[in-house]
């Protein structure tokens, strides 16, 4: 690209001034950016405008990078919470067990429901009888103790 004439340079400077006064339309800003990118020419004003647009572009990139990072972070946190929730639910909420009946009597194995339940209830009955005996024993001991106390002069 060759040198630009002074009029064009002045127009560019005017546009830059207008931009920094926040008086440019979006189309004018677009044109200004294209000019700054395409002309090899430099002046303090042009350099200042170029610096501004570069910084702005970096901020845009940084802002979108920040947004992407924030989104990734949110997704990571959500994934972590989901995994923890799944592990917690799987472990702490009891699941209904399947029915199972097993009995082994003198080496003979059976999965019959009634056989297993009969043995269980027979044993419960034995325990109930023993419990009754125990309560009777306690009752008798208390009576003996009471008699001993009452027989004191």
């Amino acid at each position: 690209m060759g040198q630009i004439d002074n009029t064009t340079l002045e127009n560019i400077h005017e546009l830059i001034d207008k931009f920094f006064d926040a008086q440019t339309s979006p189309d004018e800003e677009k044109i200004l950016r294209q000019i700054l990118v395409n002309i090899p020419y430099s002046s303090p004003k042009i350099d200042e405008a170029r610096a501004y647009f570069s910084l702005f572009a970096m901020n845009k990139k940084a802002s979108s990078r920040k947004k992407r990072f924030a989104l990734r972070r949110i997704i990571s946190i959500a994934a972590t919470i989901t995994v923890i929730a799944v592990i917690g639910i799987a472990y702490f909420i009891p699941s209904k067990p399947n029915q199972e009946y097993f009995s082994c009597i003198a080496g003979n194995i059976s999965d019959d429901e009634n056989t297993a339940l009969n043995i269980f209830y027979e044993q419960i009955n034995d325990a109930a009888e023993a419990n009754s005996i125990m309560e009777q024993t306690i009752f008798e001991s208390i009576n003996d103790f009471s008699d001993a106390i009452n027989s004191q002069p």
Partner: protein
Amino acid sequence: MNRLFISLIITILCSAEAFCQDGLQIDKIFGGRYHNNPAAAETLIQGNDDLEDKGISLIRTLKLTNVFDEANFIEPLVTADGAKAIEKTVLYKDGLLYLGFYQLPPDGKKNRYLIYLNQKPKGGDKINVIFIEGNASYDTVSKLIKK
């Protein structure tokens, strides 16, 4: 973020380990020791509807008939687990544990109970061990053995 994630997982697993079933001593009598013993009857009941209604989800029992020597093996296991009981009712007779009813420390959210009976001191012929697990309360289970 990765380190946080890994730390959280490790924390959860360690916490979960604390809730895992403590191995009970009486586990040694279930699952095969007496399967070939002609004097033994072992049962496992799980998921029975009537018992589930009472809050009982698992039962394991062992019955030995006329083999009182086995009490030398079984009673120490019962008393070892019973030493950690939350509630217990026991009766000794003639130097032997005649009846023991224990509420053991829970396994996670499941209550656990152990009932032991050695009928020898009262002239009977059986050793009974009953392990109960479920949501049932101590009162509910103790009602099972009340006449």
